[in-house]
């Protein structure tokens, strides 16, 4: 069990490395774009495309593998004020519905993503199925995490049921 935990910790840290790298590369591409356009007077096309891909991947990859349950933007006004028994019911309900919908739509989504192989991006000529492929691991992660939440709700052994929901904070408002 401990070696499994260690493996997860290791993978989680690598996922964090990748996510930080995505944002860093997005930032650097912007700087390159600005220097080429305004200093060297040579507008680039690929930077605009690269930052759009990095933004899309940063969000879906980050949400799938790095963002923790307590970072998520949620409405805890009702959830935070009901007894633990009801919280567990809510977790089971939300988890089942969410996992069910993502699972149900997965085949269609797969079709759409693979269908996009016929198009390529304008500058870098990357096939769109590669660009959009990140949606699949995102959807799988949502399904697995929802099912874990269902299991927590059913078994009742998760620390959050003991301490109650804590307030969270974000830095984009």
């Amino acid at each position: 069990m401990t070696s499994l935990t260690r493996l997860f910790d290791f993978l989680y840290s690598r996922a964090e490395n990748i996510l930080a790298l995505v944002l860093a590369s997005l930032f650097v591409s912007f700087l390159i774009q600005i220097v080429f356009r305004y200093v060297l007077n040579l507008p680039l096309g690929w930077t605009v495309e690269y930052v759009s891909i990095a933004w899309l991947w940063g969000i879906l990859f980050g949400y799938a593998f790095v963002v923790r349950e307590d970072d998520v933007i949620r409405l805890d006004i009702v959830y935070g004020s009901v007894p633990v028994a009801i919280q567990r019911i809510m977790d089971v309900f939300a988890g089942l519905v969410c996992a069910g919908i993502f699972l149900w739509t997965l085949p269609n989504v797969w079709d759409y993503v693979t269908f996009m192989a016929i198009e390529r991006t304008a500058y870098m000529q990357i096939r769109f199925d590669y660009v959009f492929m990140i949606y699949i691991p995102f959807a799988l992660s949502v399904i697995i995490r929802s099912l874990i939440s269902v299991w927590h709700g059913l078994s009742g052994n998760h620390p959050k049921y003991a301490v109650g929901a804590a307030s969270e904070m974000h830095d984009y408002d």
Partner: protein
Amino acid sequence: MTDPFVLSLILIVALALSGLSIGLAMICGSSIYLILKGFDPSIASETLLQGLFNSYTLLAIPLFILAADIMNVGSLADRLLRFCQALVGRFRGGLGHVNVVSSLIFSGMSGSAVADAVGMGRIIIGMMTKDGKYTASYSAAITAATATIGPIIPPSIPMVLYALVSDQSIGYLFAAGMAPGLLMGLVLAVMNTIIARRRNFPVDNSVPLSEMPRVTWQAFPALMLPVILLGGIYGGVVTPTEAAAVAAFYALVISVVVYQSVTAGQFYSTLLNSARSTATVGILIAGALTFNYVITRENVPNSIADFMAQFELSKWGFLLAINLLFLALGCILEAGAILLIIAPIFIPTAQALGIDLVHFGVVVVVNSMLGLITPPYGLLLFIVANITKQPLARIVRDLVPFIIALFAALAFITFVPDFVLFLPRMLGYKG
């Protein structure tokens, strides 16, 4: 509105109330709508993927988050606060004024109220409560109130979100926030003066005038940031999105090279932290994109416009009603959710009534910021309560006068559009 739409709406509310991420709740609701309508459910993911991929202006968001995070790690905030203390610390209730002025300056660098409260707020609350000069609850209250200015004065992440749903120019929206932001600072300073007199707050040890040049010099590189940012945008040198990258780069250079206060390890955790915030808000945007597809398909905004037309509201009656509705929603909903989901529903009505959409945007953003300090659900309240370890009820009691002052400012901003629009017009806005 059809039955599938009503059902999807009920499902979104039920899922969100059950504590599911609001972004995911909207993706689920949109998918159910498509399934019930017999459409291909992959339209939801298609809208999401294409929407995010083609929303170039939204890239300002991760960059503004990064810029603010870098500024909060470096010693930039300390130096700015010392400068503000030298400037306005000598009056009664001085640190309250320092709080207002530092928020005004910091809001010219960051686009986020929360970044302001977490960074500058934490330091100034420490300064105010040291020696027991100010009560912890008063320090918390004024810090939360001044942090609301952050996204009103440009740059502003909420304005970028509004620009996305309303198709207005980010540059003009930013310019339109300038005067209202200064007005909010003014009313808060006035309220602080009144309370300082009444509660007989101490006069703080002032920085001697001879120290002024040195303190200013040390803060100078930080003070130049708003100048570079706004000069870049309005001088037509860079787009607002690129300006966000320049701001982050500048903050990094002065923190690392000039102030030598950021290590490589700190920079990594700052990057990671910003990326995590980006992913979290990105999912909310993704959910809003999919749900906006449903709303448009169901023609909701126009139905609302027709419905509102029955009441024959005047422009002013509508604006008043919008203020009341958004303030009420702000008590329970996240600012981002209000701007991305609720605001677009009313935009056609506003347009039909001849309300300028840049003005409307400022009204809506100010409203959503007041939502951050109105109980029971107010993000800024939670943050300052967390910093000061004070019960919410006590902070709210000290916050009431500031909320009243900000309401007065909001009323002025709402009913005197020229006050909001004169600056964008000077910069060429035809509205």
